[in-house]
């Protein structure tokens, strides 16, 4: 088979396999932006599905909720971040609310850092958002309580692996 023929068949295959996901992605994006008005009944049913009363109640009691202090080392600067874990629509999320350095200087923030996904035997599986050399990574991790005032977050992700211990703030 000639090289030109091999080249054009290959380009065709690549265009097809890359084109299909791009086109469907654009179509479904167009679909979601077109439907601006959602029928009221649907909103109501979605809301009740997402936040059943009992579930909200149990999550409210979750020992994860509250303020936590985590140490970090950023380019050699040691410091702390204060993370507030709250529950929104029945899902627990953690936001960084402040950074503090060793000298006690602090700075406000509002970055999403932790999204709880599923409860497992070994703890909660979650997504940890972190920055490394100016790139943001979303790392699957496991979060579990060591005690009511200590939380352990561990991950092993393509060479990044660590176990962090966070302590509860009063």
């Amino acid at each position: 088979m000639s090289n030109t023929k091999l080249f054009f068949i290959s380009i065709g295959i690549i265009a097809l396999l890359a084109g299909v996901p791009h086109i469907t992605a654009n179509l479904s994006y167009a679909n979601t932006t077109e439907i601006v008005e959602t029928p009221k009944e649907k909103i109501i049913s979605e809301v009740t599905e997402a936040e059943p009363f009992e579930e909200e109640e149990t999550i409210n009691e979750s020992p994860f909720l509250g303020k936590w202090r985590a140490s970090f080392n950023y380019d050699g600067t040691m410091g702390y971040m204060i993370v507030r874990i709250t529950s929104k629509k029945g899902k627990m999320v953690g936001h960084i609310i402040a950074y503090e350095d060793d000298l006690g200087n602090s700075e406000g923030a509002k970055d999403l850092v932790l999204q709880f996904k599923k409860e497992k035997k070994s703890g909660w599986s979650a997504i940890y958002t972190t920055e490394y050399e100016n790139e943001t990574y979303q790392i699957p991790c496991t979060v579990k309580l060591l005690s009511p005032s200590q939380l352990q977050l561990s991950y092993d992700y393509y060479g990044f692996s660590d176990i962090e211990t966070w302590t509860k703030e009063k």
Partner: protein
Amino acid sequence: MVALLAKELEWIDVQYWFSIFNDWSLVYVILPFFVFELIRYTVLKRMTMDLIKDSIANAITFVAFVSIEYILGILAVTKLYFWVHEHVSLPHLPLNWITIICCILLADFAYYWDHRMMHRIGIGWATHAVHHSSPHFNMSVAYRFGPMDAIFPILFSIPIVMLGFDPILVLLSEVFVQVFQTLLHTEVIKKFPKPIEYIFNTPSHHRVHHGSNRQYWDKNYAGMLIIWDRMLGTFEPEVEEVRYGIDKPVDSTNPITIFLHGLQRLVKQMKKTEGIGNKLKLLIKPPGWEPK
């Protein structure tokens, strides 16, 4: 149906599904299958010391291959992938079934070309010949790797990242194809029903790829789908009984000899060849090439 395939998925679930095949298949298919193959060899009175030593050597080359991959730095490679993803990529694709399926198919197509290149240029064959040098054919042969086998696939997967696919999804898809390919290294399964043999790469097609019979050279490069070979003119069905190995056998079960024999032969050939231009040409010309 399309809506279902286009529904956004959670990363954590996707990684879990991949791990069932990519990681755990070693425990629930590959090892039990290898044990079955060993029993079969014993029953057929084909169990020899050479076969045992060959299998051990295969496992050792695998350890060497994995160590090199670590030294190269999986982190350095993934960082390169992430850099490409952020800076030289088409719009990033959402994580859904359509994206996953197309990514696996692209990884499979990349595997075809990577594999074809390893057979058709001198430096590629210097490392890939290790995989082909076993005179046996069983699951353990799938783990027989050469010293640079981890490097060439990078050249072919970076373009997939440039097409907008997530680097981690590309890596998971590559491992998926590799694990599928591993399962083909067996003499136990003769042939599947015709439609399967038509579309998929099967043990029969892959035995041909490992054949030293002249008509079987450089055929059936496929990973998962044999249709790539059918479309690109490299398909050959299994007719004559396959003699496994390469035309100039290594005749050794020493893992170091096996691991380095391809490179050693290439260096020897380069020393013998006159002229720097010709020496370099040996790296990119097909194996066996000689200056006129």
